[in-house]
């Protein structure tokens, strides 16, 4: 098993873990953690792509941009989660039942 395969497999496991966390959890902050986990693995894939193709500069630019965007998304998501916490007193997504149909 070479380095590429190891990185691909471990990255896929991380992404799968992130997605499962995101789908199965009832806690809003855990959704953010799931997203962060998956995006860390994606940063690894982007670095791997740069390394395999001899274009590490481009990969660096991609990874830095992804980090910035992920932080912004996490901030907005936690902002909304905190506002919901002020309304309901907890962060359980099962409280979100007003809109149906």
């Amino acid at each position, binding site marked *: 098993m070479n380095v590429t395969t190891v990185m691909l497999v471990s990255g896929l496991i991380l*992404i799968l873990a992130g997605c499962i966390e995101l789908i199965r959890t009832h806690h*809003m902050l855990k959704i953010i953690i799931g997203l962060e986990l998956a995006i860390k693995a994606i940063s690894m894939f982007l670095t*791997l792509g740069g390394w395999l193709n001899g274009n590490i500069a481009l990969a660096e630019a991609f990874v830095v941009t992804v980090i910035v965007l992920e932080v912004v998304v996490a901030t*907005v998501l936690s902002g*909304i989660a905190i506002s919901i916490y002020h309304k309901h007193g907890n962060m359980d997504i099962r409280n979100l039942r007003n809109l149906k149909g």
Partner: protein
Amino acid sequence: MTVLQWIPHLFLALPMLALIVNNVIPRARIRTTTIAMSATVAGAQMLLALAGVFLLVESGESAVRFGMIWDAGKNVGYFQTDLVSMFLLMCVGMVALASALTALTTIDDHRGSYTNLLMVMMLGLNGMLLVRDLFSLYVFLEVTGLASFVMIGMYKSTRDLEGAFKYLALSALATIFILTGLSFLFIKAGSLAFDALTPALFSGAGDGSTLLCWAALVLLISGYSIKSGVAPFHSWLPDAYESADTAVSIMLSGIVTKIAGVYSLLTLTRLFDGIAPLKTVLALLGMFTILVGALLALAQKNFKRIAAYSSVSQMGYILLGFAAGTNLGILAGLLYLFSHSAAKSAFFTNAAALEKQLGTLNIDEMGGLQKRMPITSGSSVVALLSTAGVPPFAGFWSKLMVLLALWSAGLKGYAAFALIASILTGAYFLRLQKKVFFGKPNPRWDAVVEITGGIRVSEILLTIVTVAVGLVFPLLLLYLQRAGLI
């Protein structure tokens, strides 16, 4: 530099400039000036893009490449605009104008924030249409998405936050799918520029890296489908549209899902032209979406929810147009997108008018409003007829073109299905019209009067667009044929 080379710069410069100006206006004056400014930027974009479409057709060039303003004259071109993106830039301007006019009435407290977010959203949408690589497309997609989340949750009411959270949670999943797909493509191709991504990446059977490409394609289609609210990924869409302010719903339904989702899918079909499974998947998604959206719309009681499910359903026709894969199919999909943008924006302005004058959107409580609100009723009927595909409105011609494109591409079964499914569109809209504007008048609304101000202007403008485009459509087709586009 020619006019044609200057116009594309303005699509990025205008929203950025407006964003800066909006934040230096003194607080005391912001209420009166800010929405006028966003309407001006949106209107200017619509007219500039319209001029750009004609200049581009006349010049005979396929695309204009350009850098930022400080790179003018140098031979750099990290942005590009062609006929497709120029046309969609015009749609962005049109819908943003309708949204700003509606916001004059519906938004009272957060006008400064509304303009800021609308400009960021327009910047994101314009950026998506102008970039030349899939990674930048993703970056601007995220910019658009972030502006949408904050706009939906702007008033921080329980319902707003719920709608915003549901959208954001599913978008997070879409982000993971899209980024994983992009990283797989990057591993295989070494670049994400449009020029480097060709169907050749998928040849070479049995190779491990080819498998990565197929996985990337599946992930990208799923991610973009979530963003466009195509069934079965539509669960966030009605909640977000219903909870958001109507001016925001107009932007979301009229253009955001279309550019963020459908334009991205169109980019995929244009890059990987000739890959049969991609077209089959789009056609199946389109068919399923038409059916699910229309059936769910039949069961709703809230005016905005019906419009939202109708949006889902109409998205299917656009996908079917793209699935035909031919030039005619892409053109048909784009024209459908335009006519649907105009009709659905009109429909949401009707919702804004009803909400303002009646204070409710439950269609069971309405009835016989046609006499009380003739302009709203008329514009709603035109939007209905256009969406259902009745001549001579814009929706009829674009639906006809989608059917022709499917038929000529040999997808006759899909064409027949699309035609039969139009009956469902008629059904849920007729039910809506009967309960809201016709039928037995409800004595509760005897004192209701017609809406005035920005909403009325917006209703009239969008109705004129739908009728006028429908009437000049044959001339438009002749013009496109003379230019060699169909």
